[in-house]
């Protein structure tokens, strides 16, 4: 597998990524080793979903595969689930284009 497996529970695809992908159904409190310490899961996270490794502010780029996959729309703390509720695409946004025109 490309990337680095962290503690058998998360897959970190590239060094610059601020999220990790759960490779099992993970429960609140699960620890993911990171940066010499451990990130504690703030909520249950399903297989294939992402967890923040670092604090992410609204407007910050969320990075996976070493590439931007979207922007945070809320403050996200380490150990929180990162998905459509707190991270949005920056592309294909006809809704935003309209708002800018007006």
């Amino acid at each position, binding site marked *: *597998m*490309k*990337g680095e497996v962290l503690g058998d529970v998360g*897959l970190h*695809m590239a060094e610059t990524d601020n999220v990790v*992908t*759960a*490779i099992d159904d993970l429960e609140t409190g699960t620890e993911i080793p990171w940066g010499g310490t451990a990130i504690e899961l703030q909520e249950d996270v*399903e*297989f*294939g*979903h*992402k967890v923040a490794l670092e604090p992410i502010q609204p407007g910050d780029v*969320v990075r*996976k*595969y070493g*590439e*931007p*996959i*979207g922007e945070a729309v809320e403050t996200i703390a380490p150990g929180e689930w*990162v*998905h*459509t509720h707190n*991270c*949005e*695409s*920056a*592309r*294909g*946004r*006809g*809704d*935003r*284009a*309209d708002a800018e025109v007006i």
Partner: protein
Amino acid sequence: MATFDGYPRPTGPAGVRNYVAVIPTSVAASAVADAIADRTVENVRSTPHQMGIDPPDGACEQIERTLSGIGQNPNVGAALVVALGTETIDADGIADAIAATGRNVETLTIREAGGTAAAVGTGVDHARELWDGIADARREERDASELVFGVECGGSDATSGIAANPAVGAACDRLVRDGGTASFSETPEFIGAEHLLAERCVDDEVRDRLLERVERRESAAQLMGVDLRGAQPTPGNQDGGLTTIEEKSLGAIVKGGTTPVRGIVEYAESLPVGGGLVLMDTPGYDIESVVGKVAGGAQIVAFTTGRGSTTGNPLAPVIKVTGNPKTADRLASNMDVNASTIIDGESIDAVGERIYETLLAVASGKRTAAEQRRLEEFAINELQPNELAELRGNA
């Protein structure tokens, strides 16, 4: 050298299957085409679709290109074109294009035959004769460089970008190294990853064309004032852990491997044989996208899925690859390759090797799960109003 056992054709590369294709020109002839295929022998296959009698000009041209390409696919040894007889779509033109490649072709018009029952009767006679003409074909050893490998993903989840797609990408790299062609498509799923594809284009012309195609698909969402997030990633993709189109695209493009992008062709346009990695500009709908590549000449398709897909194609074997361990288990009878072992530590290259071996075995006659179950979906991409407006603007 890698080889497969295929059916030689009068022109072009060898087929991996030996079919009589029964090709309706419109939805009005689809039921008759199905009935003819059902009542003949197993190797007579129909390609029923939903297109209407009198489509607008640009759409008509795309349908004719698709159906001609389907009849010219190396897996087709002979073809029967079936029309109601009132279509704008040129049945004779399609038959002529197929005949120009040295294949036997018949046309059948339901109106002239005297109605559906009579047309089915006459059609069965034609199909039997056409089959008799190719039934003696025997496989012979051919070079892997004759293979055109279509690559598709559907029902994606987070495992698609981690396991199944990179493994299929490794198989594409192997085939390209052996002189063959690989092709992936679904332009909406280049969005957010197009800069990585652009870097790999062989020249400025290919790069500009690729970026223009991506821009066109993305601006379609903007023109309509919609948020692409409503459709991409799909709700199912989101359940599987994919948050944005960028994330989906970055995971999707790896299914084409790592070799240079040699070109990008239109929907259903002929894919060059021995052309390396060539993209096709298609929408994101799996079935239409697979049909586009089969019309472009792909003899064989790999279809990766995370959440599960059971789809096949009437004329090209579809190899199912999943990277999701639960799908590998639940849909075991619909899957051909389990790539979820990558998550447990098997290397991407090792799984890519298994996929390449499967590709050669299927090319030589081994049946895929979809073929064993006769799963044969077929649909042609229907041009949207904005695309038709654009075509008119260019005319």
